[in-house]
């Protein structure tokens, strides 16, 4: 939690400034009350945890028809990753984010670098989340040529397409120079290998998560307050996703989602 994001912090500082003029006993008593109030505000940042489960049977994934060079890297059958369902119907690759409640607030992008790797002629991870301004590293771990073509749809985000022809090639700058606005989700594909694509959710705050293989997610240290939490899955939900209201206080908040396989048309 950043103190700059919390109005009670300003109130606390103002009160301290005023209280220093009072007699000592009254000052100590009042200061204790104010400190308790401030502490309550600071402590009322909570983790939002939850699980996204899938109801229904998803359509079968398609096996990927690799070309000869990529087949050598995949001795077993590899399929598409539209529905990755884990333990107890947990649904992976769901982008969970705060769609309302953080308007007007400014955040510093995390220093952590999000890496998108091209390995085995597949993008890893399939779904990632970043903050505007956060560094995204594109890496080629394969002994063959790939390229990275990003297709944002939001005005202000620029499409780009560049090559990483050699194993070990990395690029840390293209993403931040081109993607400057929040967007759910930016598709990235390799034009050399048509089956390679992945998605990145971009937010202007650090409170988002991508569900793991068992559908679990955690958004740590969300400041206290009322929010709309939204879960978006490319196939199981319509854009912008399925939402629910949450209130973050002093402790963790559990917010589960149940998504349904759409009826076939």
């Amino acid at each position, binding site marked *: 939690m950043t103190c700059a994001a919390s109005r009670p912090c300003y109130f606390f500082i103002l009160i301290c400034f005023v209280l220093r003029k009072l007699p000592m006993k009254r000052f100590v008593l009042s200061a204790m009350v104010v400190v308790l109030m401030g502490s309550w505000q600071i402590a009322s940042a909570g983790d939002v945890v939850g699980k996204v489960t899938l109801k229904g049977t998803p*359509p*079968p*994934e*398609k096996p*990927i*028809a690799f*070309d000869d*060079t*990529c087949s050598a890297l995949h001795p077993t059958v590899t399929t*598409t990753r*539209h529905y990755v369902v884990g333990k107890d119907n947990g649904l992976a690759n769901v982008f969970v984010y705060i769609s309302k409640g953080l308007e007007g607030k400014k955040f510093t992008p995390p220093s952590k670098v999000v890496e998108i790797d091209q390995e085995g002629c597949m993008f890893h991870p399939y779904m990632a989340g970043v903050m505007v301004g956060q560094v995204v590293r594109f890496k080629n771990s394969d002994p*063959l*040529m790939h*390229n990275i*073509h990003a*297709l944002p749809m939001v005005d202000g985000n620029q*499409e*780009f*397409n*560049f*090559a990483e*022809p050699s194993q070990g090639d990395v690029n840390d700058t293209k993403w931040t120079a081109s993607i400057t606005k929040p967007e759910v989700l930016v*598709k990235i*594909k390799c*034009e*050399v*290998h*048509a*089956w*390679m*694509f992945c998605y990145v959710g971009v937010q202007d705050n650090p409170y988002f998560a991508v569900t793991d293989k068992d559908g679990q997610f955690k958004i740590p240290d969300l400041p206290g307050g009322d929010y709309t939490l939204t879960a978006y899955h490319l*196939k*199981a939900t*319509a854009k912008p996703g399925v939402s629910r209201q949450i209130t973050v206080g002093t402790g963790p908040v559990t917010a589960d989602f149940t998504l349904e396989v*759409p*009826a*076939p*048309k």
Partner: protein
Amino acid sequence: MGFESHPTGRWIVTIYRGLCALLSVVNSKIVDNVGLKRHAVLTACMTFVLVWMGGLVTSNRAGLSVPDWPNTYGYNMFFFPPSKWIGGIFFEHSHRLVASAVGLLTLILALWLFGRKSRPVLRWGGIVLILAGLCLCLKFPAHDKENICLSVLGLGSLAASFVWPASEPSPRWLRVLGVSAVAAVVAQGVLGGLRVTELDARIGIFHATLAQLFLVLVSAIALSQTEFWRGLPVQAETDRRRLRFFFVAATCLVLGQLVLGATMRHQHAGLAIRDFPAAYGRIWPNTSPAAVLSYNQNRMEDSGDNPITAFQIELQMAHRIVAIAILLAVSLGAWRACHYLGRRHPLARLAFLWFGLVLTQALLGAATIWTGKSADVATAHVACGALCLVTGGLASFVSFRMLAAPVAQCGAAQKTELPSLLASSSITH
């Protein structure tokens, strides 16, 4: 006269009369030149191969697999190592190489059409290339391979200019077509490059359409060099049944269909409608937002295709409807040609060939959907579409050579426009 009094009707009649005048000048005599004929046919065939390869690029989603232009992954495109021609790069890079070859063939064709008059151009062009190669060798010594190739090309051009071409210039209209072909192939190259560097799918639509028109252009030049063309009786019959209008109108319909098809393909959204002859189980598909969302949610794509939109669904429906219109138009034209000219008439035979191609094209279109847009089938559909356009264009060409306009219809246009055009063309050759 009621049709001509309508504003739209006036436009159509004006364009038609202009076409009459333009195509009438093709009846000037052409000197037999076996070498030129073979080269023209080779250029047309290589252009068809290039269109096919372009179709393979889009069908295999490889259009942006080489992100730079005119280089290829930083290499000079002619020196890109074959070991790196992997995945989509193979389709895109080989397309660029064949395009360069077609560009060179087109340039040679245009020069050949100018006959001896092109020798100074060849000579001075060769000298410029030699000097450019030598200067660039000094300025950019690291690019010695490219600079040497430039100089060798210039040397070849200079040497050739002393012995080739030896023929007399072709008629003016053919020379104009030759220059137009060079301009078109250069424009094609630039459009293809811009598509890659500007990341704009709309440029791909223009690139695809111009490719088809360019194929018709070089095919027309090739046809004009053949014994078949020279053997055709010149306007020996009167076009009482408006067969010329039929051929031109149906060809324009085919061109419109090709533009629709190119627009569909360059949406990069895969198949907007996955069943045929129904459309999502109906005669006309549901394109409400909820329905389109459902189509996207239920689609398990194995490539990074864009989401389907209502516009793309409607585009495919328009493509299907125009396909039916073309089938009807071409079959009616074939019947009329056979009925009024006889089955053995060259136009009737061309019309039947055209009908066969259009029927094949319709089947390939259905097969494209049934195979889930298999790359090979979709590409065959593109190539067959090109053949349909070429056949229609050449049939129109032939119809204007063989059939004279009824005097009351085109006489007015010919009286005002034809004399000036004929006066400027070399009709003695």
